[in-house]
């Protein structure tokens, strides 16, 4: 399949059309969606209309935008007007939002063609997409294994060549971990770089929308479209969209790079080996590599599993059967709320709601939630100290390659540990990217993670491009 950049170029100069590209995409979806369960909903009519609008613009001789006619998959926790949006939950089954997320408006304005909504762990809570109320997604590279999560459907859509691009959301690794397990590029941008307006909240202070793509260049092109100030999101950074594509070939010559002990310890040997190989690639490209230890990162998992559930317990209170979504009837409103929520939420969502409710409740707030916020401060400070010494950091994205479906499903703590390398970036509100680099067991892909300070996207993308070239991809 062609890259997004190639497609946009073909469509813009009339060598292909948005409608033709959409047909190719829909064909690929039809070929494997039943097997892989990537899309929860394919919006063929809406996509045809969007493609027709792009083709009209081009027929008039106008520029249709940097993503002209590029099919894109949307994680099903992003609201799109009139298109069923479930968050992978029975509680929202059948709900069609009466409004669109800011990122949807931006994608349409850039000429992209949203094809449909992809599967995810319910309310983005999970690391395998097994927590979807509508059944798991399978890894396109090895269907007996998970694609990672929570944005497993979006990662799989790109890995299975259904769409060249997808968007996901990353609260504790939900873009980077599935991207790594599916062998593609995934980026968690700086908190506030991409508007959250219309992203169904899991943990508001950690959630960020970001890109999936096969190539670093495609990821940069997509992120440039998504990023930029949005007055509808109070936490949106005030700056305009950064220039990313223009810096893709900046390289790493003269840069200082830190490899972080805490971001590789506990990873399988085959993964540590690929990280080491990546470091050599950076040295070969003219960078200096130093070893660093940031002990505070070890507490990330603990802080995350208090902060994220606490915010989630409040964000998910609104699913009460009153205004939209599921209602299970009962004699009074309290019983109705309870019956609705009990029937509508899956176990993982219930676990996190209860954990968060507990962490915020009188008597425990200071010991758990309050303590976690302080750990968060320490983590931010620790990263800041590291970035005084080096330009960016390197580590593993995941401790293992894609694991088997069902392998960790009954052990929440084991599942949580698969996000141990990605969580610190969310707590710090900073940027990180995963880029496929080599393979491990059963020829499954391995991702190398690059972490940088806030607003360092251009630097991380150009460094990722160095690894992409070193790994023999054009």
């Amino acid at each position: 399949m062609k890259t997004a950049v190639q497609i946009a170029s073909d469509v813009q100069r009339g060598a292909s059309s948005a409608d033709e590209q959409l047909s190719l995409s829909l064909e690929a979806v039809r070929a494997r969606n039943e097997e892989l369960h990537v899309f929860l909903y394919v919006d063929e009519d809406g996509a045809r209309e969007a493609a027709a609008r792009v083709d009209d613009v081009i027929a008039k001789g106008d520029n249709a935008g940097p993503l002209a006619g590029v099919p894109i998959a949307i994680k099903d926790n992003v609201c799109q007007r009139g298109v069923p949006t479930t968050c992978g939950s029975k509680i929202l089954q059948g709900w069609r939002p009466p409004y669109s997320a800011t990122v949807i408006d931006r994608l349409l304005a850039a000429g992209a063609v949203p094809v449909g909504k992809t599967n995810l762990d319910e309310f983005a809570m999970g690391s395998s997409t097994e927590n979807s109320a509508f059944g798991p997604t399978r890894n396109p590279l090895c269907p007996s294994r998970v694609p990672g999560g929570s944005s497993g459907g979006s990662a799989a859509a790109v890995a299975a060549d259904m769409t060249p691009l997808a968007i996901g959301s990353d609260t504790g690794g939900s873009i980077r971990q599935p991207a790594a397990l599916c062998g593609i590029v995934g980026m968690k941008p700086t908190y506030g770089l991409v508007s959250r307006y219309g992203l169904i909240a899991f943990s508001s202070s950690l959630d960020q929308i970001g890109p999936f793509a096969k190539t670093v260049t495609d990821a940069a092109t997509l992120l440039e479209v998504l990023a930029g100030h949005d007055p509808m999101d109070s936490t949106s950074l005030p700056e305009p969209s950064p220039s990313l594509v223009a810096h893709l070939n900046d390289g790493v010559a003269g840069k200082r790079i830190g490899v972080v002990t805490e971001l590789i310890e506990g990873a399988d040997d085959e993964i540590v080996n690929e990280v080491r190989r990546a470091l050599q690639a950076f040295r070969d490209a003219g960078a200096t590599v130093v070893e660093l230890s940031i002990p505070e990162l070890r507490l990330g998992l603990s802080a995350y599993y208090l902060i994220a559930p606490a915010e989630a317990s409040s964000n998910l209170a609104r699913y009460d059967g009153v205004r939209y979504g599921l209602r299970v009837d009962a004699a009074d409103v309290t019983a109705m709320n309870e019956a609705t929520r009990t029937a509508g939420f899956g176990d993982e969502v219930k676990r996190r709601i209860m954990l968060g409710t507990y962490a915020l409740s009188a008597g425990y707030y200071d010991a758990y939630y309050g303590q976690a916020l302080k750990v968060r401060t320490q983590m931010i400070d620790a990263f800041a100290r590291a970035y005084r010494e080096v330009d960016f950091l390197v580590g593993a994205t995941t401790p293992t390659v894609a694991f088997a479906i069902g392998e960790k499903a009954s052990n929440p703590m084991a599942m949580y540990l698969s996000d141990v390398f990605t969580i610190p970036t969310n707590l710090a509100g900073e940027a990180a990217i995963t880029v496929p680099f080599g393979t491990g067991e059963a020829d499954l892909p391995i991702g190398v993670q690059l972490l940088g300070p806030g607003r360092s996207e251009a630097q991380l993308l150009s460094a990722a491009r160095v690894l992409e070239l070193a790994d023999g991809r054009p």
Partner: protein
Amino acid sequence: MTLANGWEIVVGLEVHTELKTASKMFCGCANSFGAEPNTNICPVCLGLPGSLPVLNERAVELAMAIGMALHSTIAPSTFHRKNYFYPDMPKDFQISQYDLPINVGGYLDLPDASRVSIERAHLEEDTGKSTHLGGTGRLQGAERSLVDYNRSGVPLVEIVSGPDIRSSAQARAYAQELRGILIATGASDGRMEEGSMRIDANVSIRKANAPFGTRCEIKNLNSLRSLQRAIDYEALRQVELLEGGGTVRQETRHWDELLGETSTMRVKEDADDYRYFREPDLVDLAPDQSWQDRVRAGLSPMPAERRQKLAARLIDPTSAQLDAVEVVIDLGLDDLVERAVDEGVSATLAISRAANELAASIDEVKNFSSESFTATLLMEQRGELSATQAKTVLAELLTHGGDPHEVAREMGFEQLSSSSLGATVAALIEEHPDEWTRYREGDEKLAQFFIGQVMKLTKGQANGKSVVAELQARR
């Protein structure tokens, strides 16, 4: 009302005032009372998944204005979520300020010179509104309820007083003075009957100088009369309880205006764990000095200052006149009065007509021009209208509008204008030469004769003093 046996009432008030913004606190929906249900709603104020709040600048400025009027410190503040389930709350949490409110401390001086401390005045959002079906239409006994979210997300400021109030009358005076301040700042229209100002009263009793007793909170008092009656009732209930050997249980109580009593609404429960935490979708609020200065520069004079200014227009005011001044300020009529006085109307007359005639038709005053008021009072002052006639003209102007001179003429008061009164008097002099001669020679009693004749001709609408003036002029 004073309590028997040395008991003392202790009251603290929490006043919620809806802010008079064009749009809601966190979204662009219209903030308007009385719209068709669920027509002012959007993803944000309906709490739809994915929606995010963005703070209304004007709401912040009105909150600051209230704080400034209450001598509060404008402080860096944050927003929290107060979590509890309730169908009229679309997100099942309320965005409110918690440990760091925008306005900290302050005080309010009442007309009787007593001072009530202010603990805080913070921003928060209003909830939707439920209508109950079945039973008596009240929540209790209803079969089902219908929810309208038009009011959801309307900006509120909650003003919390210290427990400094010692009588229901003082509570009423506090609420009234606060209402005047809210109107003066432009924060509120002060319409309690529309729910734009709602009061919760924390009431306890104690023996003089003893520690505070257990308090009960009476919710949602929506008139000054209810406030005063509810406090009196509740204090007496607590006295009876304590004197009967019982104890007061901390609880929330409901005031029934028809029955004239409070009753238990809910006792403090286990479930009251609001799990407050910082609202992650909003950032800190820290108005800098220049923003504060801009708001302060836009403040109009507060009631106390206006009261003083108006009273100073009176020479040696009586206590009845000072009461009238208070009424004029409470009703916001001082602008009309000041303008009339500037145009030559006596302050005594202008204050009196405003405190009585205008006050009686206060809803109509907003369509009433200061020119009309001034012109009518000047006619009265010149004797062209009797007091009764001036009041009649004012009433007509208030209800139907029009030009004061024309209204006076149409009502048949026109012959009383000085020229027509003069003509009437001249005609009478010609008709009664003997009486006129005796009057000219100093028999003052004959003035009464001429007044009587004028009254007969004008069907009683002439002004006696004006008649005498006309006679004097011809003597």
